[in-house]
């Protein structure tokens, strides 16, 4: 066996063990969502249920308006993702293509907001939204999520990989800067835009603390709140049902990831336009 092959085998063993650790919770959730509560307690290690049942799913669909909850979550996540991407692209473009006084200071201030913990802005946001009479509405949840410094940072980084002369060549043809953004810049950084959008979408999809603060009525619940109903101290101990809700919660982000994984990986590993 050559040293190279040995190295390969070793690497694969490491990668496979990491993969197992990462996948175990998913497999655990999936398998328990098909078990009865008593089976779940008696055969904890059994990943393939001996007596699979759809009981938990039936329970979820009969007791919860799961379609409505999914739509609520989708509504918030789509608004957050679309707006964050739009504002990120526009401000990143301003920070890349324009020269203005105080540009660097402004950029620094915006980027430093990445380091402000959520707990600090949570209360002011709550007060602002409730005074706007938007508490307990989906719009109220979405409203503070329309811009994001991380997005500005990531998009600006990828805009900076476009050679300056390409922008200049477009500027020599084009009378408007917006035209250059639309025709040249956006198409060239499309992978970055897609993956940033997906990350925003998934973050919002999984968000718990902010929706739990804002939303009181069940009809406005998001998936992560619905999930909490089954495992919190006030909720039940029906944890197999909770697993069924988890599995349902995972489906959309998982699907998105599978479709767009090419873009997501390329954004984090390559430097965009060559």
């Amino acid at each position, binding site marked *: 066996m050559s040293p190279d092959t040995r190295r390969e085998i070793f690497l694969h063993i490491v990668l496979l063990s990491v993969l197992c650790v990462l996948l175990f919770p998913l497999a655990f959730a999936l398998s328990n969502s098909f078990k009865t509560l008593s089976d779940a307690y008696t055969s904890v290690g059994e990943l393939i249920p001996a007596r699979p049942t759809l009981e938990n799913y039936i329970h979820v669909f009969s007791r919860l308006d799961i379609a409505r909850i999914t739509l609520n979550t989708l509504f918030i996540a789509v608004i957050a993702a679309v707006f964050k991407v739009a504002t990120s692209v526009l401000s990143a473009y301003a920070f890349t293509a324009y020269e203005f006084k105080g540009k660097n200071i402004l950029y620094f201030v915006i980027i430093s907001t990445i380091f402000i913990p959520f707990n600090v802005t949570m209360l002011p946001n709550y007060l602002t939204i409730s005074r706007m009479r938007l508490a307990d509405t989906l719009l109220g949840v979405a409203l503070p999520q329309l811009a994001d410094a991380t997005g500005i940072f990531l998009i600006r980084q990828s805009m900076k990989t476009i*050679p300056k*002369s*390409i922008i*200049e*060549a*477009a*500027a*020599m*043809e*084009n*009378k408007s800067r917006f*035209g250059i953004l639309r*025709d*040249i810049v956006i*198409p*060239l950084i499309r992978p970055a835009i897609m993956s940033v959008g997906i990350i925003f979408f998934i973050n919002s999809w999984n968000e718990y603390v902010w929706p739990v603060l804002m939303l009181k009525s069940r009809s406005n619940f998001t998936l992560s709140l619905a999930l909490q109903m089954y495992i919190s101290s006030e909720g039940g101990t029906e944890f197999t049902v909770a697993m069924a809700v988890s599995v349902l919660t995972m489906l959309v982000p998982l699907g998105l990831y599978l479709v767009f994984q090419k873009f997501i990986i390329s954004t984090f590993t390559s430097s965009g*336009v*060559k």
Partner: protein
Amino acid sequence: MKSIVMKDIRKNYGKVEVVKGLDITVDSGEKLILLGPSGCGKSTILRMIAGLEDITSGELYLGGQKVNHLRSGERNVSMVFQNYALFPHMTVEDNITYGLRINKVNEDEISRRKTDVMKTLELSGLEKRKPRELSGGQRQRVALARAVAKQSCFLLLDEPLSNLDVQLREHARKELVRIHEKFGQTMVYVTHDQVEAMTVGDRIALFSEGKVQMLDTPQNVYNCPANVFTAKFIGSPSCNIIGAREKNGFVEVGNQVFSLSAQWAGCLRGKEDLCLGISPEQIELRETPRDNAIKGVVRYCENYGHKTSVFIENGGTELVASTEESRFGPGDVVYMTFPQDKIHFFDKKTGHNVGYPENIARSCENDSLYKRRIA
């Protein structure tokens, strides 16, 4: 009217002045070469004409209109970038027609111009390719096609051939001249390559440190360099510049002298500290002593095949001579003569050409510079 007029154009980056007061008029349909070593400000000048750099002070007129305040999209200029700057996400034909579509040229006209330039530049068949699927030479031609299809009055080229290999460069050079003949735009061409400058240009503006050193036809730049910088920059190997003193019709070079014609002697009268300039290819080399020749010893030879550069030492100074013969070798004693109609004299302090005698001046045709200096 497709002239470009620059009036006292200056460019500062912070406190550093990179272009120091430029007064150049490029006539309609002329090919002006901006030549100079890297960092001399020639690209900055081109970019100011294109509208990609602000003009710190001075006035720029394109076709009679002052354009200082116009954005580059409004100046009716097209440009070929050094790295071509093709849009990577567009096909060849979209690259060529993008500007035309933006500027709402009608579709028939777009397709007519596209077919025309693609045929002229031998790009037919590559319409649907992306830039990354093209070779370097093809990319260069697409960039040129894009600039030409715009049919703007002014064509700016920023070292357009520097990324090509020698053979392609030669071909592309001819193509550029042909394109210019066909479309007749006023052309400003930045390069650091003197061969391109000599072959493509109607006039050459030679720059150093943000200032024009000489602005004239290629022949005059070569035959009557305005100063030491110009003499040294043009020619390969570059022009020999040696300290020399004139005394009673003789010139001292190192520890030897050669005699000057009466005209030269008259022309140099009263000028003490001088430098003699002579191009390597103008030095005549012999193995046997001759009248009015200077003796030297060969130190080193470089053989290029079609010619040989011979490095000769003479009393502490080194000269280089080009010859078609390759019979010289290190250690040989050689005798050099400097043809009187090929030598130049420069003022040692200022570096300026001190001028030529009447009979030699005739070889510098239309030499405005010469007339100015003698007057």
